[in-house]
């Protein structure tokens, strides 16, 4: 099982943080362009899903799966968007994303008055803790090609 990469967007669609662990293919564009494309797609999927849904939607969690990877989107009520790409068999990703929010983002960004909430995250402590939490999760087991 593998965790590929993580995007964190704020409520204005700005990329706050990006990191990857096992990413074997690059998109061939700059990170900025890629982030814009990603946010645009998430935005469209969300409104598409809300429109065609036959039942009332309550949860801020959404995934899609291709035959190679799964994209997991967790959105907090404050509209922060955590997007984690994993392989298609990964389990417990929703819990992992919630853990990243409560134990990494809130602890090391929100509690840190030097972190501007509207700017990309530069805190090294945040990066280190994020890495730690992800690597401890059951879904993470690196298998380099």
């Amino acid at each position, binding site marked *: 099982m593998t965790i590929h990469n993580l995007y964190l967007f704020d*409520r*204005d*669609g700005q990329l706050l943080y990006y990191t990857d662990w096992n990413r074997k293919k690059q998109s061939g564009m700059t990170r900025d362009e890629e982030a*814009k494309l990603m*946010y*645009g797609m998430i*935005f469209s999927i*969300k409104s598409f899903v809300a429109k065609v849904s036959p039942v009332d939607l*309550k949860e*801020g969690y959404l995934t899609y799966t291709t035959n190679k990877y799964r994209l997991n989107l967790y959105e*907090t*009520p*404050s*509209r*922060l968007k955590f997007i984690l790409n994993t392989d298609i068999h990964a389990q417990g990703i929703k819990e992992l994303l919630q853990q990243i*929010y*409560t*134990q990494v*983002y*809130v*602890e090391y960004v*929100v*509690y840190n008055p030097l972190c501007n*909430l509207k700017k990309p995250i530069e805190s090294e402590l945040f990066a280190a803790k994020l890495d730690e939490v992800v690597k401890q999760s059951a879904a993470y087991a690196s298998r380099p090609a």
Partner: protein
Amino acid sequence: MSRQSMRSNDPKKVSGELFTLTYGSLVAQLLKDYENVDDVNRQLERMGYNIGMRLIEDFLARANPGRCYDLRDTADKIQQAFKLYLGVSPSIGSWSPGGDEFSVVLETNPLAEFVELPDHCLGLRYSNILAGVIRGACEMVQLEVMAWFIADQLKGDNVTEIRVKFVKRLEDAIPAGED
């Protein structure tokens, strides 16, 4: 890991008196820095707003309250937050007929313990920071509200009452266009 284990049980409790006195020195300093009380009121509101913006994330992570579907939900959660952060249970009441306005009524105001307003600052809304916190926190969950004090025990009222009025729902930002 120690930080996590502490938070999983009970959030760290601190002495309420320390908090009250620290807030008191903040207000006293603002009164020194600004000449008139209106400016102090405005500054307190602004500081509260900045606190609210961060506090909401802590509240969501700690209490996991889920989304609000109407203003009554919101009022309940504000009540829950007062309990969590100030250790008091305000009552919610005085709904407007349209259901877009309500009051948060505090029997005791933890911020204003040990406080008496001197005569020259009768215009001071001592606990105005709370109004800012409510506004800032709600804004982060897509709710634009106005919050202001309509009764204050420091001014001889029986209770402290904060009025909250719903203004509008904020929508998700649309993606930036190609440039």
